[in-house]
């Protein structure tokens, strides 16, 4: 990794957030195995550097849309692990009061315009947020997270085309983990990368090592600045690998064990820890962060477990903003 003048505080913050996401999701997998979690759990184990590196390049006022594999993206943008865990447990204390679950975490006050269960659907939503900043003349940047799978949805083309035509302040961030559920991107796409498509829209497109948070940070920072200065959108493609199945319970038998093992050696957290030690950061500090994250996730788990479920009598709440009861009645 290149030597850059990063503050120790920033480096440790990146390390802490990657660990926070990893420990949050590993805890989820344990809860899922024990039958404590309903629904589907899509983890981003192995991809944490992207969410953390990208969100580090954003300001608090900026916006993101997250994906169905979005726990890390939401946490990196500031979502609290206890409230998130409660949502995933279907509890009323969760971000969406138990109405959304794993694929729908949102907190607009943090700039999280929602994770999304429809692949590619967040791309136009993020673009609409960028349009809002443009028409209001404000300087927030919106970042759309999406996967290699979503890049083959029509929404990808439609939204990027409009953002490019109107120079909207947005960054399209592709987490290329190479698989759309079980299908390898190269078996359904002719180009070697997703970022190469930027040429079609005459916008910048770069490819970075998605397992290196600082490389992601540098690329996104540049794209954010470019957008904030009114130059329009960019595509940043982060190459990575999904270490677990598409969702919990998927053994990922469609991938070779050798490839997975190769990527395990490139684990973003292990690599970053090694980098920090080389930067002469005291290992004791890293251990302290590790332990603090263990405590935080334990507390999040306890909060989620002990929180009440939403009352079944409130099942019809929140469908409509006005005239709700009459509108759901018939």
């Amino acid at each position, binding site marked *: 990794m290149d030597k850059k003048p990063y503050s120790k505080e920033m480096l440790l913050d990146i390390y802490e957030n990657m660990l926070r996401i990893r420990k949050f999701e590993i805890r989820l997998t344990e809860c899922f195995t024990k039958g404590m979690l309903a629904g589907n759990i899509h983890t981003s184990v192995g991809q944490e550097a992207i969410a953390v590196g990208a969100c580090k390049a954003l300001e608090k006022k900026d916006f993101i849309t997250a994906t169905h594999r979005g726990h890390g993206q939401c946490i990196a943008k500031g979502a609290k692990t206890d409230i998130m865990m409660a949502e995933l447990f279907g509890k009323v204390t969760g*971000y969406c009061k138990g109405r959304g679950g794993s694929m729908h975490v949102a907190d607009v006050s943090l700039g999280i315009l929602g994770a999304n269960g429809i692949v590619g659907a967040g791309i136009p939503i993020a673009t609409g947020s960028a349009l809002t900043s443009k028409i209001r003349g404000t300087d927030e940047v919106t970042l759309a997270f999406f996967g290699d799978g979503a890049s083959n949805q029509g929404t990808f083309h439609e939204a990027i085309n409009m953002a490019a035509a109107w120079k909207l302040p947005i960054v399209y961030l592709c987490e290329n983990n190479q698989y759309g559920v079980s299908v390898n991107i190269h078996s359904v796409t002719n180009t070697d990368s997703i970022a190469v498509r930027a040429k079609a829209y005459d916008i910048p497109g770069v490819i970075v090592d998605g397992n290196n948070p600082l490389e992601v940070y540098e690329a996104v920072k540049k794209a954010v600045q470019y957008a904030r200065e009114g130059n329009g959108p960019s595509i940043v493609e982060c190459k990575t690998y999904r270490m677990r199945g598409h969702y919990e319970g998927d053994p990922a038998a469609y991938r070779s064990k050798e490839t997975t093992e190769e990527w395990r050696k490139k684990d973003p957290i292990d690599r970053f820890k090694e980098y920090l030690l080389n930067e002469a950061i005291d290992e004791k500090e890293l251990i302290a962060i590790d332990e603090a994250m263990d405590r935080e996730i334990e507390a999040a788990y306890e909060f989620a477990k002990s929180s009440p479920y939403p009352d079944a009598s409130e099942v019809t709440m929140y469908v409509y903003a006005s005239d709700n009861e009459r*509108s759901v009645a018939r």
Partner: protein
Amino acid sequence: MKQMSVSHAIREGLHEEMSRDKNVIVMGEDMGKMGNPFGITLGFLDEFGPNRVIETPISESGFTGMAVGAAMRGVRPVVELMYVDFVSVAMDPVMNQAAKMRYMTGGQVTIPMVLRAPMGSGRRNAGQHSQCLETLFTHIPGLKVICPSTAADAKGLIKAAIRDDDPIIFLEHKLLYATKGDVPEEEYVIPIGKADVKREGKDVTIITWSRQVFFALDAAKELEKEGIDAEVLDLRTLVPLDWEAIKKSVSKTHNVVVVQEGVKRSGFAGEISAQIMEELFDELDSPVERVAALNIVPPFSPTLEDAFFPHTDDIVKAVKKVVNLI
């Protein structure tokens, strides 16, 4: 009162709301210099500028999805689909995003967005430009559905729709755009979810909406000649449904015909019919009759298209059936 066409009334309603609230924007194809194929936004680009009159490429899914994102940020987008038939390529942002966002975020987010679209048969536009698709939308919780008939209703309801915080599907019948009617001189808003008795009667209630209101009124005139006094209840809004108005009318006439222009199978007329049967069975003197289009693709040729969707004669016949004259 002043006389104006339905398209002019919608234009005036949009114009008033855009002038009143700078958060209101319009988005869609050909909205700029052309002012849309029906002239609804003619002159808006010059007056409100390109930041509020967003002329889009032919990317219905993209721009409808963008409207959802803008609405999440507090913009009040009025999106236009050139024909409601094109919602097929914009259904995800409508069905899975706009409609569900509030519930799925536990009430954090509202989507104050209006999706306007012309619908309806009779313009010889064939299968992909002639459908009445209100049933697609009434089936999706989270959406409100408005289908005005008169110029006054269209203006008052588009204004209410823009001010409402929920995603609203506003379906305009393209064969009504040129129809003129009285519109109040002063500013007014018509509440969403209020039906309107367009003709009072005591023998039978014809429940309908959009252009079929006019066929029903013509049918009532025909029936009057035979001594049948028909009430015409214009629902105006399908979701939320004005059940009190239906109940009041049915309890008076005890006979019901529900008329919809869309195809009969799984239509909203069937929904109303079922609700009346479940809750007002004791009020009924005869089974509820439905009048609707054939379960076929809207045809092109005039002879075929006229045979496809309901006209005055079909309504007259259905009313005579429920009042036991045939």
